[in-house]
């Protein structure tokens, strides 16, 4: 059964004129599917490959290089992906403690999501927002200076 909607397929096709070949649309396509489905199933890989005129193995080979993408439904992302920076600048200002605290408060571990499916916790290698260490990334937007007093507010915001 087809899993990609016509809308996603069209968004993928819309990228074709930007590149001299279709393989270059692999990462944009994976992002589009991953953002919507919260993981990229084998069937989705097959359909992406068909659109890009590649073999599914080629798409999977690229996807598996980036540990960014989830492959299995049981390990899909929650509604919001919360990345906690463990880079050096953050470590020096409480980043490791922030990751530990958030793991406890969310009752989950990096790489997993909360029971209510709302938050996926991740650790990130330096996210490049070191002027506000310790910092986190909410999906792909940074939040600076996440000091201990701000943890509960952040969780409440993401659970809303």
């Amino acid at each position, binding site marked *: 059964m087809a899993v990609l909607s016509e809308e996603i397929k069209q968004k993928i096709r819309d990228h074709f004129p930007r590149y001299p070949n279709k393989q270059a649309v692999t990462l944009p396509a994976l992002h589009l599917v991953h953002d919507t489905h919260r993981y990229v199933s084998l069937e989705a890989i097959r359909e992406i490959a068909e659109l890009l005129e590649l073999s599914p193995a080629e798409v999977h080979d690229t996807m598996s290089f980036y540990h960014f993408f989830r492959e299995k439904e049981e390990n899909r992302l929650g509604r919001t992906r919360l990345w906690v920076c463990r880079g050096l600048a953050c470590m020096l200002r409480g980043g490791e403690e922030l990751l530990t605290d958030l793991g406890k408060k969310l009752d989950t571990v990096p790489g*997993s999501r909360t029971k209510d499916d709302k938050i996926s916790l991740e650790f990130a290698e330096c996210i490049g927002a070191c002027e506000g260490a310790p910092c986190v990334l909410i999906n792909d937007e940074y939040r600076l200076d996440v000091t201990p007093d701000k943890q509960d507010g952040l969780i409440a915001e993401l659970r809303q």
Partner: protein
Amino acid sequence: MADFEPVLLRRVGRPLDIWAYRADGGYRPLEKALNELQPPQIIQMVRDAGLRGRGGAGFSCGLKWSFLPKDHPGPIYLCVNIDESEPCTFNNRYLIENDPHQVIEGVLLACYATRATTAYLYFRYEYGKAARIMQQAIGEAYAHGLLGDNILGKGLNVNAYIHRGAGAYICGEETGLIESLEGKRAWPRIKPPYPAVEGAFRKPTVVNNPETLSCVVHIIDRGADWFKSLGIPSSDPARPERGSYGPKLYNLSGHINKPGTFEIPMGITTQELIDKYGGGVWKGKKAKGAIPGGLSTGILTAAEFDARLDYDDLARYEIMGLGTAAVTVFDEDTSIVDVVYNIARFFSHESCGQCTPCREGTGWMLQILERMRAGQGRREDLDILADVGDRIGIIPGTTICGLSDGAGWPIKNAVKKFRAEFEAYIKSGQKKQTVSLALAHH
């Protein structure tokens, strides 16, 4: 505080839109170039200015452009490397978030000079905000006839596209970036051929950093002599190309009162940057040391803070270049073992796995440091760390790219400069509480 009027950051706080940028004189250098200068003249001006790449390696920008084959039928590509992933580095993020059109103007000048017709702006995934600001700016530039066909009626054709990565440090290596752009694993290529000859989609390609491209705008605007009036000439008269010229963005982070991004003429000392711009070390403490230019450049002890942050002077203290000019300070109470552990963990995680010495070597170094932090360090560990560091990388010739040179260098550096502290740590058998949450996915 500053006796220097910012150039690259002159528009911080001004509106981001194209109308405001043009009202502030933006895109006039481009008009000037299209009206008055031929592409080879621009390349010559950039060479004369002594502009060296701001991304880390410090290679001459004009020289890089001159490596493109002459009379190539095209297409030629420009890749803008916004995979800014060297830990503790964020100057390009700050630059783009505060003045996206300056970067687009630099892109257009580079395309005009190199005859590139397509620019791919490769953003690391984590820079979502910067990518959206840039997307808006690109849309405005198209609407104003500053991207697309026949730009400003002068026959210049350039398309610009944003391409987003997926969280891999290796994509900042220029051939890793190209592979990733092409939709493949970001495994760096064996060089030669260099991208200038055979890059993206097997066509001649220039890979430049946004800050470098922004410098080009001001070289065209104010001249090569102006650029060269800032910074410091080479200490070796026989090698004048080793000078460090122009304005530079410096990042400050870690145990510092005022972390941030500062624009300063090249060559400020580490101590001056910390005191004058960063407001000194936090909590009234003393510094133990600092990473001067991103993790891979090495570690300065506090006694070495007289080092100038330029392409030349840091070598005095066995630092591998200016890197990204991102200075991270750690205070006197920080354990050097923790700092080095963090560095080893990063490189082990980010090794792309293509070359065995790097994939295994970075893992071994991390295991040794984990063991040390578990209270089971051995005296010979320090020599093993230095030995592994010596054997992985393009300097010893065992890998395809420089990731593992950057992985080994700071560890060797730290073992040499802080040996007594490491030995005391091992001897004490102290155990460090390590954050070791089980990882379901990674």
